[in-house]
């Protein structure tokens, strides 16, 4: 499953880079994240749980590694989460370009899901991923706005 697009963020790439790498901000951008700690300079671990409708928000272990870092313009996140319902993993490439006072963020995530969520949830995967992306970007925007002012 590939999700891509661009999104306008407040603040220049330089201004927001450290914030994007801040585990608290990162957690906001990933809906359902319950805990996220930086365990090494470019490695984060935590837990998340996303509940949709009747589906209980079961806990997933989450590991994120940031690679291909071209500060402040681009990076890649290796995302790996697994739990009772299966797993989700993949990469998300993020590119920032200055856009006026802010930044234009280009993202391209290539994610795969497995286990129960794949076998039983295919009807909703597209809608759910769109929703989580939208929520995540909005939350990120809000968080950056708050932190930059």
């Amino acid at each position, binding site marked *: 499953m590939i999700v891509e697009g661009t999104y306008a963020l407040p603040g220049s790439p330089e201004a927001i880079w450290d914030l994007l790498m801040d585990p608290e901000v990162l957690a906001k951008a990933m809906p359902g994240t319950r805990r996220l700690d930086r365990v090494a300079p470019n490695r984060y671990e935590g837990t998340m749980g996303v509940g*949709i409708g009747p*589906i*209980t928000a079961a806990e997933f272990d989450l590991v994120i590694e940031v690679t291909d870092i071209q500060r402040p313009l681009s990076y890649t996140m290796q995302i790996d989460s697994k739990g009772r319902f299966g797993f989700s993993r993949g990469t998300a490439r993020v590119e920032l370009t200055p856009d006026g006072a802010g930044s234009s963020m280009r993202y391209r995530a290539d994610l795969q899901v497995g286990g129960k969520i794949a076998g*039983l949830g*295919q*009807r909703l995967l*597209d809608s759910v991923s769109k929703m989580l992306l939208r929520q995540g970007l909005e939350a990120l925007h809000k968080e950056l706005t708050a932190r930059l002012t």
Partner: protein
Amino acid sequence: MKPPPFRYFRPRSLEEALAQLEREEAKPLAGGQSLIPAMNFRLASPGALVDLNEVQELAGISDANGTVRIGAMTRHAAVERDARIANRVPLLRETMPHIAHPQIRSRGTIGGSLAHADPAAELPAVILALDASLVIRSTGGERRVEAGDFFTGLFATALEPGELVTAVEIPAAPARTGWAFEEFARRHGDYALVGVAVRVTLDPKGRCESCRIVLLSVGDGPVMARSAMRSLEGVDLAPDAIREAADRAGSADIDPPADIHASAVYRRQLARVLTRRALTRAAARASETRQ
């Protein structure tokens, strides 16, 4: 495929049910025809269930001052068989046989389906087309929410924790109103790839006074085809106008998801075709009632 354990409550009255919901942080169990499969797959593991099936006051259909009121625990099968529904809310009657299968309809409930808010479900689209309201109760009291405000996203509604849908209220249709429901499913009773509920009201001269076109399975919830609806207001419902509106419904008005059964492009095509067919039937019915 056995469900995980849970605490079980079986209230006899609405008051008791609301108190238990609040106290136990429980999930209400209505017909259970979506929840229990999810539990059998162990995708849902509610800690506690408050079973509403013995709360008699929540079931039943009544008709007063032009408004048809359907209790939340009224079974689909009861709605399907009810003569008042057939007469007063024929769009709903026409839709009922499309909902799943007979065994599901004899257990599933109106309120359960609305609160579940599955984007592929028929009833949310239909009650939105009917401009209905939902009656919502909690221990704190009662409120009414219009269908247009009730569905807030993917499986998401305006219900707060501890709140229950207790009834849906459907206002009387104006004169010169026609209706139609269309859906396309792989097999009868499956989640529709696309569905559409249409209601049109003509003015005395036979032009479209108002219309509602609500699609299902093309978004996070029931989706109103707003530009299509606007394009028909005040217009003669001739084939060209209907075709143009249907084209809008299939393009600008929706952003459909893709799955293994249907691509987004195919869903747009189905939305176009079904909207055109539904509008055509609804317009014909409306002009029949005019004569």
